[in-house]
């Protein structure tokens, strides 16, 4: 099964708009969880990860897939018109089921930090698991986010990424129909 028999958004215009507003709120307020438009994606993609990809990725943005998410490759090629790249350093977006090493992706340059990659990561669970304390722009006060399924060295990797500011990778975390975001501007501490 390639997943090609499964549809994209029921209504591409409002589906993308609703999902973008979820992404917009998530990126503006790091760590807050938002629900995307309903979607029936092919495994292993959950609705939130599939919706984020449908909303943001197209032929202008090279997409890198990790081994597990490659199963949904045909579906992504068809619905996003995505250009899949094997080189993580060339990717504008990465879709991953297990967190790849952040250092493999383009962090942007001082003159053009917006050229950095965005990693869309699917995790087993948001709201339970390890606790992380977030602080930075978008947060009135430091807040706690619980994520299940990040590697033990994630805070250290993120520390390196955050130190590159204004360069750095942005992370979108998805689980089921919900997503949250960790822009490079946010600092993360394990608690």
């Amino acid at each position, binding site marked *: 099964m390639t997943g090609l028999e499964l549809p994209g958004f029921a209504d591409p215009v409002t589906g*993308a708009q609703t999902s973008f507003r979820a992404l917009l709120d998530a990126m503006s307020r790091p760590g807050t969880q938002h629900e995307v438009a309903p979607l029936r994606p092919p495994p292993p993609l959950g609705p939130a990860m599939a919706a984020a990809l449908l909303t943001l990725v197209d032929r202008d943005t090279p997409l890198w897939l990790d081994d597990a998410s490659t199963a949904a490759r045909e579906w992504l090629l068809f619905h996003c018109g995505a250009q899949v790249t094997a080189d993580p350093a060339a990717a504008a977006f990465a879709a991953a089921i297990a967190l790849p090493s952040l250092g493999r992706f383009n962090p942007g340059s001082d003159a053009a930090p*917006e050229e950095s990659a965005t990693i869309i990561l699917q995790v087993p669970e948001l709201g339970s698991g390890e606790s992380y304390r977030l602080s930075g722009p*978008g947060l009135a006060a430091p807040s706690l986010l619980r994520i299940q399924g990040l590697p033990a060295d994630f805070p250290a990797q993120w520390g390196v990424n955050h130190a590159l500011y204004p360069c750095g990778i942005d992370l979108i975390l998805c689980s089921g129909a919900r997503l949250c975001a960790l822009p490079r501007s946010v600092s993360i501490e394990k608690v």
Partner: protein
Amino acid sequence: MNPATSSPDTGYNFAYLDEQTKRMIRRAILKAIAIPGHQVPFGAREMPLPYGWGTGGIQVTASILGPSDILKVIDQGADDTTNAVSIRRFFARTAGVAATTHTEEATIIQTRHRIPELPLREDQILVYQVPQPEPLHALEPRRTETREMHALADYGVMHVKLYEDITRHGAVTIAYDYPVLVNRRYLMSPSPIPAFDTPKMNRMAALQLFGAGREKRIYAVPPYTEVRPLDFDDHPFRLTRAPHACALCGATGSYLDELVTDDQGGRMFVCSDTDHCESRRTAAASREDAA
């Protein structure tokens, strides 16, 4: 076309822009939020309004707008001026969204040169129309140079400009578009809002998005982000306001427009934020009725 009706036009995609363009703008907006104050280049489209009429703000609004949004558009604080009326009608026709003039009812507020007097909430988004996104433009017109200056966070030239103002005039003479430092990193143009409004940007609960159509730049200030007017310890930023009360509602804390009423030197000062002024007058009238 009949200007009195605002039934949605058919033949255009929802909110005028095609989906490919919206995706490109949406990607730029997300990057802009991740790097507060940094100008992200984007492929601004030709719009059915000329550059200088808010095409940047319109493209940002079109990319975030949904059918359930309630839109407010202001031009220098007023809901009923030409630019605001045209943009509101544009979205009524291409997206069929509800419009309001009340700040508290709106989910998206597109603005030219003002921030509403009423403090904004977390569930609102403020979209600014920006003519010149580069705060260093008047001091260094070359884009290649200013790009480098932002990359190095080298803003000495702006401090020199403020210093020269103080030595010549005793105070900084920038009355609008006062340069601000965002998240302690990027020098940013707040768009030509009066310096009076600049403090409202600091740690605002609402998301602030900026669109410059002709200059093809998008930038953003996420909620609760530090926005500090550039100043000196011994010459702190001071806001200025005409020393009058509004002639219509009596407000003493709002930003005022000076209106010339005749050719004999007659003038009056009224609130620039028309919704603020009207709600104050309505509240005063209902208090009188009750009394």
